[in-house]
């Protein structure tokens, strides 16, 4: 095994590896990645179907568990357990299921429900708008400055090549807001203000998209902040009333008679509703913050490269693959971590093969590393804490003018990383 020094020192100006590959090498790389993809796609079958179906069933069980526990949300323990189950359900539904199904990763099953054209998710961002801005814009123009609107989501300066503006002084603050309300940020981002201003997007289209967002917002609000809190409230009130009536029957009369009982039941009901609404809001924020953290670690850590529009002129399939490789970074973690992150810890593999079922990324990772090693290409990866730390440092530093490219790791050297 090769011994790897902690952080191989590299010149900060290490040239973009894309520039040093010949067209023949790029073609060869393209063929190798195509072959990896073809092998997996030809092998898809029952085992893969069982995987996604078990994830979908697990989401539904967790959601029911969380909702039922929260019927007793006035009890601290039920509140904590219910919120945890609901957060886990929302994370699973958003990441491993929603994101990946809407990428078309499971379209090969020809299942009318588990399909990119019909799937909808528990999110304020409508499926169609997200599919366009994410699957098309972001996955086609990954890390191309001026083309990939996901590069800082148009509101953040995360690459020193982006021009500084005083508004970026505020980015450390709205960074936190974005983490808490990520799904809202995504919904607004999908509207594409730039296209609206330039007139590229018609008013009618904007209206249509706003109505779609409105419908999603209404659905989520009705479910999380009206319907389930109402049920919890009714459950709490009924429980209180039942308890009091039993005490009345057994002779231990309480103060206030029936009116008193009704008053107490009403108070308990309101408390139950409030607690459940709080729990639902907490679950949404936890899900948002988690999605934010995983997604920001995908392209913004120090190891990744960005590209100018000039650099991708006349790009071949091989060139596209190498750009995906250079522009993405993996997060190392356990099997559970990868499920919870929708396998976006395999961001490199996801960007190389966006429509390959996510459950196969772990299996192709060694083959991708092998290609990197043979062509002297980097394979960007690091533990979650370190990757997220780098991203936050960049957000803080680049809020101020200046800044320079961080050192890049250089060619993948093999080993366990």
């Amino acid at each position, binding site marked *: 095994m090769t011994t790897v020094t902690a952080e191989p020192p590299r010149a900060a100006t290490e040239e973009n590896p894309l520039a040093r590959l010949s067209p023949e090498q790029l073609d060869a790389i393209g063929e190798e990645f195509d072959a990896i993809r073809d092998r997996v796609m030809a092998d898809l*079958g029952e085992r893969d179907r069982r995987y996604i179906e078990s994830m979908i069933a697990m989401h539904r069980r967790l959601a029911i568990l969380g909702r039922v526990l929260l019927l007793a949300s006035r009890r601290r323990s039920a509140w904590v357990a219910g919120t945890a189950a609901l957060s886990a359900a929302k994370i699973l539904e958003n990441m491993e299921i929603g994101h990946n199904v809407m990428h078309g990763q499971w*379209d090969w099953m020809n299942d*009318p429900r588990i399909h990119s054209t019909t799937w909808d998710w528990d999110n304020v961002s409508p499926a169609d708008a997200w*599919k366009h801005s994410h699957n098309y814009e972001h996955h086609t123009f990954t890390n191309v400055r001026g083309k990939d609107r996901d590069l800082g989501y148009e509101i953040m300066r995360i690459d020193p090549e982006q021009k500084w503006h005083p508004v970026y002084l505020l980015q450390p603050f709205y960074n936190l807001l974005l983490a808490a309300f990520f799904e809202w940020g995504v919904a607004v981002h999908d509207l594409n203000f730039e296209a609206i201003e330039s007139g590229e997007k018609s008013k009618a289209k904007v209206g249509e998209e706003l109505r779609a967002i409105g419908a999603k917002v209404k659905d989520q609000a*009705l*479910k999380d902040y*009206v319907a389930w809190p109402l049920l919890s409230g009714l459950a709490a009130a009924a429980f209180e009333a039942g308890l009091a009536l039993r005490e009345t029957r057994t002779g231990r009369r309480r103060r206030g008679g029936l009116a008193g009982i009704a008053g107490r039941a009403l108070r308990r009901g309101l408390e139950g509703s409030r607690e459940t609404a709080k729990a639902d809001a907490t679950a949404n924020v936890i899900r948002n913050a988690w999605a934010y953290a995983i997604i920001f670690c995908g392209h913004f850590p120090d190891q990744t490269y960005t590209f100018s529009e000039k650099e991708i002129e006349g790009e071949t399939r091989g060139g596209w693959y190498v750009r995906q490789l250079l522009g993405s970074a993996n997060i190392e973690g356990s099997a559970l971590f990868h499920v919870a992150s929708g396998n976006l810890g395999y961001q490199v593999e996801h960007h190389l093969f966006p429509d390959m079922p996510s459950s196969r990324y772990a299996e192709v990772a060694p083959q991708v590393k092998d290609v990197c090693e043979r062509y002297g290409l980097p394979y960007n990866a690091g533990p979650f804490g370190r990757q997220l730390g780098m991203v936050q440092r960049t957000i803080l530093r680049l809020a101020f003018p200046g800044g320079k490219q961080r050192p890049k790791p250089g060619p993948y050297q093999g080993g366990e990383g």
Partner: protein
Amino acid sequence: MAETAATPNVPARRQRALQALRSLFTPLLPDDYLELINPLWSSRELRGRIERISPEADGAVSVLIRPGFEWPGHLPGQYLRIGVVVNGVHHWRAYSLTTEPGRADGCIGITPKLVSSGVVSPYLTQRARPGDIVRLGGVEGTFVLPSPPPRRILFISAGSGITPIMSMLRSLERSSEVDDVVHIHSARTAEGVIFGERLREIDSRHEGMRFHLQLTGEQGRLAPADLDRICPDWRERDTFASGPGEMLDDLRAHWQEQGDPERLSIERFQPIVGSEGGATAAGGRVRFLASGIEAECDGDTPILAAGEEAGACLPFGCRMGICHTCVGRLRAGAVRDLRTGEVHETENEMVRTCVNAPEGEVQIEL
């Protein structure tokens, strides 16, 4: 979107209850949770459970299916689109219903025959087990026994073409209308007659039934001219024929020359097989159903490019087959994936227009 099953006949009260609970589960439906308990409870799509699988002659099996909700009914002779999951993939095929409408147990049956190069029939004949869940699509077909049935009937069937005729015979039996029926069935050997035992039983039970078995292994194929010998009054009968295309063509010609073609109904199952080849398609005319625009598309131009050239406004994305933005529903014809050479020809399949070229005439819903 992939091919979908039929919408079940959900009782109104249950429908209202599910509707009322919707906002608790959006964007899912209460159904999505109920089906964790019993997959037949889905009111999104009509499913059925396999109750019994019994072997028949000639590599066929009879599959008895219990629909999740009340069976909407069918006419004797019609076929059913049935969806099964084989190796993770939903596949749809049409099979004639072999049971009569209105069975007391509410079940329906099909009798697929093994086609060893196929996907669905090997599953149904060899691997399916009672308890398995299948999807039930629409009931279709105009090859049906009218109600009330004609007074004098001639059935002509060959091989697995017996299946729609079986439903007609069972239906006539159920309503006690086997008054004047002649049935000529062709099979290679006596042992290879699908439903052989039941056909002989029906024959022996009814005065008005006459069953003639043509063993082609010994007697050769049935020629239309043989009818004058086997069923001299064939011109006075309403005839229902089901079998290989060649036999049906011969019968049709015979009826045109010597009988009343109006009184001949035929059922044909013609398999459409894609040709082999590299990553160049045959090319052809593409019709975009949303706009009505037609485009000539040669064998190495993706449908998307040809459509845009012809002025159609089509959804597009990466143009390299990864983002699935450009998918359209294939309504007719076949397309070839220019990357893999794979042919897609399933009606209602979603195809990526950016990487597929037409194999002949194509209609696409875009």
